[in-house]
């Protein structure tokens, strides 16, 4: 028979405001096996903890129940307190009378009854608790970063600097991401490429960083500290070791009219190409979908002109399997599709997205930095910027959230136009101008006060392409006037969303994702760079809209967390794992099939069944791999499988106690 101590917490008025603590205490005293009951305003405080420790020693308690908050909050606190005594920490149970009771009930009597029932259940469970001992699992001192944008690159650099090997996997032919496409950055107006490319070069030459571009994640196995991940390096058709990056191949390529991804389709690229001049690695890829050699078998001009003989039409995808201790998701964002925004006439060449505008103002872009209308190559006399296109919108085609970066980049765009071409009339239609951030509002005000950008509170309802100009119907809400006017170029501040592939990646890593496909943090405030899945970390705008400074700061935080993990030699594992009774196992393999961690295998084992020795094929659990999910327990047809700490006996005892 256990000697159980029950400790009821008031949590100030959080619990005591709705639950009659005295009654819970009184009721607990009459439960079987209960030797000691106490209450305290804040059980988690140092005084509360020492009260628990003292009672364990003085009353020689063999099990304890803490009736307080969710075990997510303070189970570790109290287990640590128990561990400071002679008691095994797993002889402790928590009854959640806050989140699942006082916070969700208004009626005091009802809440008190429930608090009593939950306490009763925890007491009943403790009767069946047994001491458990955590194991250890190894840590592979290597990290994988998925996504080679500014988030991935800066995170990788920080981890590499701490002395750990980092691999970056990037799906496009070069690292750099969206930041590489930008012209200037707000609010300092420094050249985006000028501050990004040194970071890219740092990553390229860092002894601890390996970059896999034009690559994707193929499969993921394992768990925190011990992931086994296969990377598919897509066939580049160019030998990376031989290529010198001279560019003769793409100069000679006859297929020159493919809309370039890097220029957002405004500029054309060849079938063999490097996305941009500072690409890392500076090794082209052959786009097999458009290449004449792959389509017709003829051509091969690039092969002819390639001096180092690097072109390899026979190259195949390569699979690399590597072990990692931690994985960082840094897949970033992309503008949403504007197919369903007919009212803005996006099909017109002179209606462009903000990212397209970035390419147009960039000296390396398709217009060499010259601001022109794509339709007639003429300089526009007036430009209209429209904010919140697809953001803060509850329609299916749109996103309900604020994309956060648009207010600032639109102010930047408007300012850049006015700076270069003061004669162009610039109008910005806005709903709200949101500029929280260091020097952000001052930046926006400069656009208005110094550069004469015309901000209009209101929206555009309709755009019609007349051929020589664009006609817009809009409203100025402060003037209460409808505006019907002509403009030459329209820039749409398009909402951003996570890249599509993140769903698949999150699925492989069992990391959770929200309804907008943004990655979910383990805790929105206290664990902002960790996913709820141990060993999977987050960086950059895959978590939600972020600007560059925020992304870099966040990536640094992510790196710190990853370094903290990789610096450990061993991880303490949860002892609440599957447990097999070999006498009941009939060798059916059902558990092996459902185990998501590959922790169960079958082996021929000698069983001593009441003196009768026999070789039987039974399940064997790998204690390092088992995560204690319980899938095998519910699958086992013969009741041989159980979960330590959550055994069938413990759970039925809890249910019985509640129903009593």
């Amino acid at each position, binding site marked *: 028979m256990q000697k159980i101590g029950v400790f009821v917490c008031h949590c100030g008025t959080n619990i005591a405001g709705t639950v009659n603590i005295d009654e819970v205490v009184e009721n607990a005293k009459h439960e079987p096996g209960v030797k000691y009951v106490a209450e305290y305003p804040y059980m988690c405080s140092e005084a509360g903890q020492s009260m628990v420790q003292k009672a364990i020693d003085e009353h020689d308690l063999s099990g304890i129940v803490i009736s307080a908050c969710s075990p997510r909050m303070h189970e570790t606190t109290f287990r640590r307190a128990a561990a400071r005594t002679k008691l095994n920490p797993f002889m402790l149970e928590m009854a959640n009378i806050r989140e699942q009771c006082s916070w969700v009930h208004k009626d005091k009597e009802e809440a008190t009854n429930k608090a009593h029932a939950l306490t009763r259940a925890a007491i009943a469970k403790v009767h069946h608790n047994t001491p458990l001992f955590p194991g250890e699992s190894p840590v592979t001192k290597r990290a994988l970063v998925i996504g080679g944008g500014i988030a991935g690159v800066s995170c990788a650099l920080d981890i590499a600097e701490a002395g750990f090997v980092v691999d970056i996997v990037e799906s496009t032919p070069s690292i750099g991401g969206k930041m590489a496409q930008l012209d200037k950055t707000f609010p300092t107006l420094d050249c985006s490429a000028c501050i990004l490319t040194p970071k890219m070069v740092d990553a390229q030459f860092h002894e601890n960083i390996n970059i896999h571009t034009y690559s994707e994640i193929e499969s993921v196995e394992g768990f925190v500290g011990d992931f086994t991940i296969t990377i598919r390096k897509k066939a580049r058709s160019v030998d990376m070791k031989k290529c010198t990056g001279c560019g003769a191949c793409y100069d000679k390529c006859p297929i020159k009219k493919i809309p370039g991804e890097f220029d957002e389709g405004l500029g054309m690229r060849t079938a063999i190409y490097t996305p941009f001049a500072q690409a890392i690695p500076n090794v082209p890829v052959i786009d097999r979908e458009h290449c004449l050699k792959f389509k017709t078998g003829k051509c091969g001009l690039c092969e002819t002109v390639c001096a180092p003989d690097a072109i390899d039409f026979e190259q195949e995808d390569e699979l690399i399997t590597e072990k990692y201790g931690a994985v960082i998701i840094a897949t970033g964002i992309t503008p949403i599709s504007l197919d369903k925004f007919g009212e803005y006439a996006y099909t017109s060449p002179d209606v462009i997205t903000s990212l397209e505008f970035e390419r147009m103002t960039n000296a390396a872009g398709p217009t060499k930095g010259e601001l022109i209308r794509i339709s007639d190559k003429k300089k526009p006399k007036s430009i209209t910027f429209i904010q*919140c296109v697809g953001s*803060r919108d509850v329609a299916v085609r749109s996103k309900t959230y604020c994309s956060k970066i648009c207010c600032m980049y639109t102010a930047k765009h408007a300012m850049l136009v006015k700076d270069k071409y003061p004669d162009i009339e610039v109008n910005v239609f806005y709903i709200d101008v949101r500029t929280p951030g260091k020097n952000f509002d001052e930046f926006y005000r400069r656009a208005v006060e110094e550069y004469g950008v015309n901000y209009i*509170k209101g929206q555009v309802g309709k755009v019609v392409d007349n051929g020589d100009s664009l006609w817009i119907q809009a409203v100025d809400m402060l003037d209460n006037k409808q505006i019907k006017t002509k403009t030459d170029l329209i820039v749409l501040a398009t909402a951003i969303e996570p890249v599509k592939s993140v769903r698949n990646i999150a699925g492989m890593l069992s990391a959770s994702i929200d309804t907008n496909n943004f990655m979910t943090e383990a805790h929105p405030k206290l664990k902002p760079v960790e996913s709820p899945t141990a060993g999977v970390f987050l960086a950059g705008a895959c978590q939600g809209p972020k600007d560059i400074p925020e992304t870099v700061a966040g990536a640094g935080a992510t790196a710190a967390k990853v370094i903290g993990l990789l610096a450990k030699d061993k991880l303490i594992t949860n002892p609440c794992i599957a447990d097999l009774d070999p006498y009941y196992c009939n060798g059916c393999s059902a558990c092996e099939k459902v185990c998501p961690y590959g922790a169960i295998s079958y082996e021929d084992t000698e069983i001593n069944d009441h003196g009768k020795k026999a070789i039987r094929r039974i399940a064997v659990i790998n204690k390092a791999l088992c995560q204690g999910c319980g899938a095998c327990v519910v699958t086992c047809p013969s009741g041989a499988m159980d979960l330590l700490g959550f055994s069938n006996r413990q759970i039925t005892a809890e249910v019985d106690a509640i129903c009593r």
Partner: protein
Amino acid sequence: MHIQNDYADQIRLISGSQDLKCMKCGRCSASCPQYEEMDVRPHQFVSYLQRGDIDALMDCESIWKCLSCFACVERCPRDVKPARLIEAARLLRIRRQSDDEFITPEQVPALLELDPDIPQQLLASVFRKYVK
């Protein structure tokens, strides 16, 4: 500000319009083809409802100028449904009439004398407006 009064609630009930969702972006007014003809503009309809100034809404010219083209409903990013709100205001305006402003059965023969071709449906529809 969210005023609760009978008329305001009736408008919400009839239209299904959720005025609190409005973020005052003005896309309704930007989309409206009848904007110039209106004394109260589409984006103001929502403000009037929020303020509970329903009498002003029912007395304005705009409710008779709205073409019910539903461009505002289509473009509204917050699903506020301004056109449906106007339709509800129009309906309440009619219901607000005192009984003697409506046609009575006794008046029907005189009307038919005036115009024997008057469609039956028109008479029936006038009767239908005796809504309590």
